[in-house]
């Protein structure tokens, strides 16, 4: 994991100590916070979440180095990130989405590779998960709604089905990313 603050490395080290006296734990904590804040910025519709996280972290480093006591790194990071987001909202006019935002005109070779990787990754799923995801995507229109109602009835509710599908999709995405990267190397 790399952490590349814009400010003085000495300040960054003090910042890590503030996160944790153990450097490895501090780096791990930094990574966790980075994921949370980046996710927050994505949820706020920011097209440049990584850059805004960097801005947030630099400000937190400056704040921490003023010597004031802040016991909760998550809370401080969130407060600063929210200010960064508000400032960004005030100054930035949203750009229109690119024409191909849905990726319909991806190169055929890449599409083919991703499709192959998806097949491979589906095969790697444990059988119950594979069966679930097939049922989840069964049918179209009203048929799909009926299929998902049956799943919800069998598993104990819509929320459970939604979370289960989300977890399996996340697993597939990670697997496909690895597969595509391996094919590229």
């Amino acid at each position: 994991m790399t952490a590349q603050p814009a400010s003085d490395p000495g300040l960054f080290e003090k910042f890590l100590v503030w996160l944790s006296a153990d450097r490895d734990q501090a780096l791990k904590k930094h990574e966790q916070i980075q994921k949370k804040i980046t996710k927050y910025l994505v949820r706020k519709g920011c097209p440049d979440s990584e850059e805004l996280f960097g801005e947030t972290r630099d400000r937190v480093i400056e704040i921490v180095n003023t010597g004031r006591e802040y016991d909760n790194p998550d809370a401080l990071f969130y407060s600063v990130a929210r200010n960064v987001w508000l400032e960004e909202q005030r100054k930035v006019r949203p750009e229109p989405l690119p024409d191909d935002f849905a990726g319909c005109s991806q190169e055929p070779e890449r599409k083919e590779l991703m499709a192959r990787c998806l097949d491979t990754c589906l095969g790697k799923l444990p059988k119950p998960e594979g069966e679930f995801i097939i049922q989840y995507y069964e049918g179209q229109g009203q048929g799909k709604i009926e299929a998902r109602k049956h799943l919800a009835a069998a598993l104990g509710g819509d929320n459970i089905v939604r979370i289960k599908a989300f977890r399996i999709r996340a697993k597939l995405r990670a697997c496909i990313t690895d597969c595509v990267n391996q094919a590229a190397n």
Partner: protein
Amino acid sequence: MKESFPAESKIREYLLGRLDDQPETEDQLSRQMIFDDELSEIVDSVEDEIIEDYLDGTLDESDKKAVEEYFLRPPERREKLRFARLLRDRFAKNNKAVAETGQPRESRPVVVFRPRLRQSIYIGLAAAVLLVVSCVVYRAGVRRGVQSQLEISRNAQSELEKQLEQERQNSADVAKRLEKHEPLVAVATFIGRFRDTGPGQVVKVWPGTQQVGVEIQMPGSSGKAYDVVVQSKSGNQIWAQAGVKASSDSLAFEMLRRLFTAGDYCVVVSSQPGRYCFQIKVEK
């Protein structure tokens, strides 16, 4: 799901940027989502669902606009969209369902067919089993050489054959109706937001249609009871029932077809804002 968690509808509003002009509410939700990993996962799953709904074309115009102008601004979300499309394309090959018409969901009539064909088939099969049994009895009678038993069996067989033929005709009639998409039960299905403006979705009824059903998807409604009233366009009450129980987050009920003529109707559900409107169209 913890009781302190926001409702799915609230999470969707948040993700579509509709709470950005309510700083206190937005701030409270943001904090909850950041500091509670369980809620954060639920929010992630609702994101996926918004993407699925967008690809399904089931979002209303306002939500669709919010997705394209706000929700999909981050490249991470566009990547999720591409992945979702990849998954759907993969599974579409396995599906035997009829292709989508391409029209937005609101302008496409949604009718669910619930034929009673199975009942006719079971009666036909039962008649066939009886026929087989009577044949066995007939053979036994021949072996024993009992003339009267043979005569009785022949009569029973003849009777059953008539009944079977009748059932076959009934099944053929029902099948014909189904072929022409004439449901015995015509259903109006409401998913997501209800329609309180305009004529709403069109529900076709045929001469053979016996029931008109309504199915309203209401997340979080399972096990709860609602008072339901169906009104004509002029506000006259057509049908009412108290204590209709929802199950699997869905409120469903059926009414006699003869209560309805062609025209606009709306369903009012207790404790629910707005109405669910649909139009009955009588087909010949």
